[in-house]
């Protein structure tokens, strides 16, 4: 009985068992099945982080798609001394920062109207009532995070929400750990102040004074 020299299903199954570093090597060899497996693994974590940075799911989808395309296009530049995740998230967060900057620059032309619309959206979300507390907290975060700078926002999402270690956040952003701590300190201060201003019910009484 003739045997198949190459089975796509078999190759996919093999990639599914490999670790990220092996996938990156497969990518470097131009194996599109390795890219497919990488997309399967990274879409959720990338989409989650980028959504929390941008606060807009549609924009986040676009950024994730282009990020994965860039990963493919720059596969030969990948240095195996980097953790694959760090390298991929570096591309994604840079793109998210660019998107955030260009959006903010667009919004500067009509800040009042956009702010009003966003607030109205948030209020509508809250009126929907039967939402889980976690989702409400997420909406509050997305609203308050508007007050952060791009870098503060990325650092806060990666470090405080995603729980990534400071040294990894520093590598993703291409800066020192002390800079990460500085951004985090400022982000936390801004968020605490804004919470006190807009959502005092979430602030402990001893801090309200």
């Amino acid at each position, binding site marked *: 009985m003739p045997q198949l020299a190459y089975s796509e299903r078999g190759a996919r199954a093999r990639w599914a068992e490999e670790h990220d570093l092996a996938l990156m090597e497969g990518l470097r060899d131009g194996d*599109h099945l390795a*890219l*497919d497996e990488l*997309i*399967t693994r990274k*879409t*959720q974590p990338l*989409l*989650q982080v980028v*959504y*929390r940075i941008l606060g807009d799911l549609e924009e986040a*989808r676009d950024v*994730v*798609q*282009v990020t*994965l*395309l860039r990963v*493919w296009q720059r596969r030969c530049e990948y240095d195996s001394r980097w953790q694959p995740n760090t390298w991929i998230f570096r591309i994604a967060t840079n793109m998210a920062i660019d998107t955030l900057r260009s959006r903010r620059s667009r919004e500067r032309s009509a800040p009042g109207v956009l702010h009003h619309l966003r607030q109205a959206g948030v209020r509508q979300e809250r009126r929907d009532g039967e939402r*889980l507390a*976690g*989702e409400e*907290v*997420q909406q*509050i*975060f997305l609203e308050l995070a508007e007050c952060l700078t791009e870098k503060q926002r990325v650092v*806060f999402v990666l470090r*405080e*929400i995603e*729980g990534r*270690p*400071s040294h990894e956040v520093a590598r993703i952003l291409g800066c020192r750990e002390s800079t990460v*701590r500085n951004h985090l*300190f400022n982000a*936390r*201060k801004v*968020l*605490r102040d804004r*919470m*006190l201003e807009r959502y005092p019910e*979430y*602030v*402990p009484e001893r*801090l309200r004074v």
Partner: protein
Amino acid sequence: MHCTQARRLLQQGDAAAPGDRDAALDHLDHCGECAALAPRLDPVLLFRRLPELAVSAREVERVRDAVSILRRAPADPQPPRVAGMAFRFAAAIVAAAGLWLAPGPPRHEPRPPQSAPEARLAGPVPLPEYLASVETLGASGAYVATQVSEDDLTLVILANVDVAGR
């Protein structure tokens, strides 16, 4: 780290040393009781564990398709690039040669003084027959006119070329 110690560090907020705070945050990952209490110690910890974003298999498939399409799309044609430095160098040489070879500064012959432009006001615009002039408005050349044949009074301001009053 004990719960008491972690809570004390979290309550200190940014006053705690970064390493200590990290250790206290790690403690939250393993202690549900402290994790539930954390936002009361530091309100920003409310955002520490936001719900995971649910991504369906269909969503992943969409991303895979989109990347596949983008991957196969031809790259944008780049405009032909002139080697920047060489081009600038050549342009500088041409400009310098031009300045060196050019005759001296152009001599400006004194022009005869130009006569003042003739007044363009050629007088009032002639009125059609069905209109009669009622009043001239100063030196502007404008008129107030009325219809001759109808009862309805129509005021029309007829301006000539220049109503600025020259």
